[in-house]
């Protein structure tokens, strides 16, 4: 009796296992189908998704995935159209580009975990470098493209409410008591790290390099922070839509965008000193080899440096890296702002992360009681 029950159990277990095993399999098939549909719907050129894997036959269409960070949504929406036209003219090939946006660190992590991006366009070099450490991007990627792989740059500015009621002019105004500051969490947000470092650089200049005083300054700053969202976009929404805080520390482009969305409600204040924020782009070598998309992915990033693309970046409030085109936008950007940079003033991202943002480092210390 006992024996027969046992064997029945085993049989049933086996049956159920097959059922489950079949499930991912069949929904895996579903996934292929879905992407096939996407390709035909978007590129208006019905080709099976698998076509991308046969570079030899020069397929009619190819698809790549761009994993990016939050504030670039509007930029890449436009840039993708520009690139699609360019590539069609150049190679006679349709490109389908799938976008993914989120906090920069989160996006880097998803690529490391197996989100098969062909290119990454993230908020900072450190995040792209994590992907290199995971073995997906080759060594020396920073030098593969011009300008340290940063086709456009930005900086950190203040966004304040109309009329600047708290009279905020510079970094030392936002550490005063009674000012509510909105900035994201440097532990999870790339933009937040630029914010932190810019503030530190200001304090360092004021206090002649006294680390203890810098820590005091940062402590005062972060005790004014009322909401520490996990991403830059979250902070902007908190400040703009939900009306929190007196000042938002924001990417310059994000600040411009908020102004465009809500004309007349906000003002941009440029502090006396800020940081040159260089969002980094890279081809994810392991993935493009797997997909056979090396050529188009590389071209996708290189085209970011073309005059048309540089102008588009300027129109989307990123500072073009080409100095001539940057000058065309002299009315938009405050070109006189003093900018420190990560390599010269902080010894690169590795050192900065270690010193400021690692567990137990300065950012954690300023919150310790």
């Amino acid at each position, binding site marked *: 009796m006992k024996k*027969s*029950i*046992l064997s*029945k*159990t*085993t*049989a*049933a*277990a086996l*049956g*159920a*296992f097959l059922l*489950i095993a079949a499930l991912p399999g069949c929904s895996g098939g579903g996934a292929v189908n879905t992407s096939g549909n996407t390709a035909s719907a978007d590129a208006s050129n019905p080709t099976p998704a698998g076509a991308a894997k046969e570079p030899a036959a020069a397929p009619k269409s190819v698809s790549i995935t761009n994993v990016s960070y939050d504030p670039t949504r509007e930029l890449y929406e436009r840039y993708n159209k520009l690139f699609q036209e360019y590539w069609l003219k150049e190679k006679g090939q349709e490109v389908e580009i799938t976008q993914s946006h989120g*906090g920069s*660190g*989160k996006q*880097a*992590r998803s690529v*490391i975990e197996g989100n098969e991006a062909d290119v990454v366009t993230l908020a900072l070099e450190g995040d792209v470098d*994590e992907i290199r450490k995971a073995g997906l991007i080759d060594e020396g990627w920073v030098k593969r493209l011009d300008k340290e792989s940063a086709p456009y740059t930005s900086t950190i500015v203040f966004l304040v409410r109309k009329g600047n009621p708290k009279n905020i002019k510079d970094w030392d105004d936002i550490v005063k008591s009674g000012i509510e500051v909105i900035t994201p*969490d440097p*532990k*999870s947000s790339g933009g937040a790290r630029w914010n932190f470092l810019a503030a530190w650089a200001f304090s360092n200049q004021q206090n002649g390099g006294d680390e203890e005083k810098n820590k005091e300054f940062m402590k005062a700053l972060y005790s004014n*922070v*009322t*909401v*520490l*969202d*996990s991403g830059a976009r979250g902070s902007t929404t*908190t400040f703009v*839509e*939900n*009306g*929190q805080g007196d000042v938002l520390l924001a990417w310059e482009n994000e600040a411009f965008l908020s102004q465009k969305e809500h004309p007349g409600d906000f003002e941009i204040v440029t502090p006396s000193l800020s940081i040159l924020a260089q969002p980094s782009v890279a081809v994810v070598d392991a993935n493009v080899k797997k997909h056979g998309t090396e050529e188009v992915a590389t071209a996708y990033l290189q085209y970011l440096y073309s005059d048309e693309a540089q102008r588009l970046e300027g129109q989307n409030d990123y500072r073009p890296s080409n100095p001539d085109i940057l000058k065309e936008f002299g009315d938009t950007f405050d070109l006189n702002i003093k900018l420190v940079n990560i390599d010269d003033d902080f010894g690169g991202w590795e050192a900065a992360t270690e010193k400021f*943002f*690692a*567990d137990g480092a300065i950012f*954690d210390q300023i*919150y*310790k*009681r």
Partner: protein
Amino acid sequence: MSGLKAPFRRRGNNVIPGFGLSMGVTLTMLSLIVLIPLASVLLVLRDYSFAEFWRVVADKQTLATYRISLSCAGIAACVNVVFGVLLAWVITRYKFPGRRILDGLIELPFALPTAVAGIALTTLYSDKGWIGSLFDKIGVKISYTTKGITIAMIFIGIPFVVRSIQPVLEKLDPQYEEAAAVLGAGRAETFFRVVLPELLPAALTGFALAFARSVGEYGSVVFIAGNIPYKTQITPLIIMNKLEQFNYPAATSIALVMIVFSFLVLFGINLLQSKINKIARGS
């Protein structure tokens, strides 16, 4: 009998067929979908010493998140028990227009996507929102404070309490209460001495379920929590934070603490519930 000590082996003689099959399917699916995935968490920690594990899970900032998560969830569950008993009572004992609609609305937090609930609550309770602006006038901030977290937790926890208590209340014969009243007990006395003791196990189950769910909740809480370390950072957010620093072992360590915690809470609930069942069948 001593040979039959192994778990999941049937006991007693029972003529109903299908034990092997149903147990087989149950255990297999449970293992594949829940147990093996959860065990994989341990695999990530294989290179982690206990000292490292402890340093992460007992870190000051992590401890603060437990405190915030647990206290908000605790307060929310208490509020839910009070209003849960009230709602269950009103729905089962009174007849009034709209009773069935009220009854139907209880499950709204189940059905409403957590992210939608989170965004809606944040908008509603921020100092620009309909409710938040009223509280702002008396100087109380709700969104981005622990009050906001608690409110989101009340929102997601309420159905658990009402639905735990309702069946017990339905089974509890009103005659019982009437008898007490006839014997001269006051209304309050009847409620506290006759009804409440009967409801207690169910209320506790509801409390524990709402509590366990609130502690782990992410979608609806993340929008309304300010994420300030030591002040409004909840445990799921610090797990997210560790992940974003590519620190998988640290994230999994804290996750493990939460898993063990929810297992213990649930185990307690199930013990309670089998007790309730015995009472329900006994009386």
